[in-house]
């Protein structure tokens, strides 16, 4: 076992009755990185997280977390791990402070030290003025911060967060990621799941999970390169017929009708294409001339920013080929 690895999973499977939730998943997470599990709802992310935490026994496969074999050695793991469940899982009839103190006591933090730690966390998460409020009366963003606070009470080295930003407004999500980056700078390893593609850009490395398998893995930049094997060009054209057929020499990833001119418009519809190019500056002129030869009016053509969503769609459509 490699001591630089925080999580090492081999051939993980979990079957519920006839439903295969996790289907031969492999994962290597390095100590000190922010690692994202990205995938749609039902991809098996939560089940994987629960097995990593020892909350569920795998049907088969091996899980080593910080060198501890799960779920057998979960007692040792719990000491160094902070966990935030997908659903808010603190006591709504306890106050913010009572929740933090309760968990602090369970970790055996001495009284005086605990008081310091609680006020430190309240200030870090800007929850001081709500410390006496019942957790059930907090807003979504505050609940999320409280849950992070409880996960951090014992200064864990590994932080496991299951969809921490689900259902929270984008500005609050960005703020939450500021906290995570801050913690990561203090060498906390973070494993986070999300189905927000934009959010995954914050991770050092990500695994795309679909139907209980890792279908692609790497840094966000790597993934985009590897998956697309080149640059993405966005071309907007107007005219009758299928512009994709004129571009048979390159790969069209996505196509959508743009602008007001609907399909019935006398001039034909404005269509926005996302096209994959080996080398954008060299191929864009060729694309334009091919389209014009086919009778289309090219309104614009430029290299574009690849989102993880593009990557995901591409990977899932061509599942198996990339993995």
């Amino acid at each position, binding site marked *: 076992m490699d001591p630089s690895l925080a999580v090492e999973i081999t051939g993980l499977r979990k079957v519920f009755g006839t439903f295969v939730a996790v289907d031969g998943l492999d994962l290597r997470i390095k100590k000190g990185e922010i690692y994202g599990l990205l995938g749609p709802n039902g991809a098996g992310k939560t089940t994987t997280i629960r097995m990593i*935490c020892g909350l569920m026994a795998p049907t088969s496969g091996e899980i080593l977390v910080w060198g501890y074999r799960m779920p057998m050695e979960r007692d040792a793991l719990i000491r160094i791990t902070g966990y935030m*469940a997908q*659903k808010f*899982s603190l006591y709504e009839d306890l106050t913010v402070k009572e929740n933090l103190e309760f968990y602090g006591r*369970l*970790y055996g*933090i001495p009284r005086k030290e605990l008081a310091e730690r609680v006020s430190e966390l309240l200030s870090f998460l800007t929850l001081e003025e709500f410390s006496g409020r019942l957790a059930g009366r907090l807003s979504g963003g505050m609940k999320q911060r409280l849950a992070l606070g409880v996960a951090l009470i014992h200064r864990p080295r590994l932080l496991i967060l299951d969809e921490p930003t689900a259902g929270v407004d984008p500005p609050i999500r960005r703020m939450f990621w500021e906290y995570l980056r801050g913690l990561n700078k203090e060498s906390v390893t973070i494993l986070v799941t999300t189905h927000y593609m934009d959010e995954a850009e914050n991770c050092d490395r990500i695994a795309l999970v679909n139907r209980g398998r890792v279908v692609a893995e790497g840094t966000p930049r790597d993934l985009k390169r590897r998956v697309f094997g080149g640059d993405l060009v966005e071309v907007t054209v107007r005219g009758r017929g299928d512009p994709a057929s004129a571009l048979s020499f390159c790969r069209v990833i996505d196509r959508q009708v743009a602008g007001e001119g609907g399909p019935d418009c006398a001039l034909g519809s404005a269509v926005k294409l996302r096209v994959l190019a080996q080398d954008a500056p060299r191929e864009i002129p060729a694309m334009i001339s091919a389209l014009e030869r086919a009778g289309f009016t090219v309104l614009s053509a430029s290299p574009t920013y690849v989102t993880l969503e593009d990557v995901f769609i591409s990977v899932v459509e061509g599942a198996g080929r990339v993995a």
Partner: protein
Amino acid sequence: MPEGATPKVMAVVRKELIQLTRDPRSLVMIALIPLVVMLLFGIGYGGSTGKVGIVIVDMDGGQMGTALVSAISETPTVSVKANAHSIEEARTMVSKGVAPAALIIPEGFTSSLLSGSPVRVLVIIDESSPTLASTVKDSMLAVTYNFQQEFARQVHGPSVELIYNSVYGPTVTNLEAFTPFVIALVLQLVPTTLISIAICREKEKGTFEQLIMSPVGRLDIIFGKLAAYFIATIADMLITLFVAINVFGVVIRGSIFDLLLISTVYLLGSLGLGMLISVLSRNQLQANQAAIFIFIPFLLFCGGLAPVELLSPQAAAIANVNPMYHFIMAFRSIMIKGYGIPQLLQPVAALLVYMGAMMSIAPAILKLRVE
């Protein structure tokens, strides 16, 4: 454990107590139910004994018939409710439920008696309510017995007289007879139902998942919760005992410490049972239903409603494994007979076994997993 740290089980106790004080439903259950039950019990069982009113048909009209009617009025358990003129009329009245029984004094009752011939008195009885019917039969026997004693004295004839001499008497009132039963009801139903949601509510709300990601152990969870609910429900035990002794004037002939001791053991058993239900239930609704369902056999075979020894040998066998039966028996013996624990080794041992079993099964089967 680091120095200065609170033991984990104490953290659980504290958290549970805070939650109990913030839950109106639990507070009502802890405080109000025992008081209401004791109040209703005091009102219903504490007053003077009620009388059964019967219908009289006096076809004799003579001196002895009148004497028999007045003997009925003097009996503490029966009174004359109405008079009828014929057997048919009396039978109709009993069938319609006007009275549970009718007494018919035949024509020639006085003359037959005075001439020394045997006489028959007919009693028409409604058997649809067996307890009431048997009370009426007992009363009629008593009336006839008293009447015969009086008659024998008048004619200087021979008679056999019964003299009752009671132990644990002079009399045990209804209130005293039922106090052990009512205390058993409160100590069974309230703690079991209350604690039955303790674990499954955490599972239902998702808080269990976070809880078990901390270094808390199964024993911390189970015994922390048990201790908190014990602190909360011990008040119920004290309230019910206090009301019985100080408000209803129930006399405790044995030691109050013995009573407190067996009540505590029983209370802990009830809490352990509720905890077991909670560990086994999937959600709060299921747990509440289970707590109430399990209460039914406890109640049926506890000897509080009907003496199990008289029901059937099967009932007696079931009662033997019913902790409520042993509790009521021990409680009654201490309260009414003045027994001490050494005379009650068998029921007390049964209660201890029950408590021990309940307290150890729940932690043994609790899984720190999410499934």
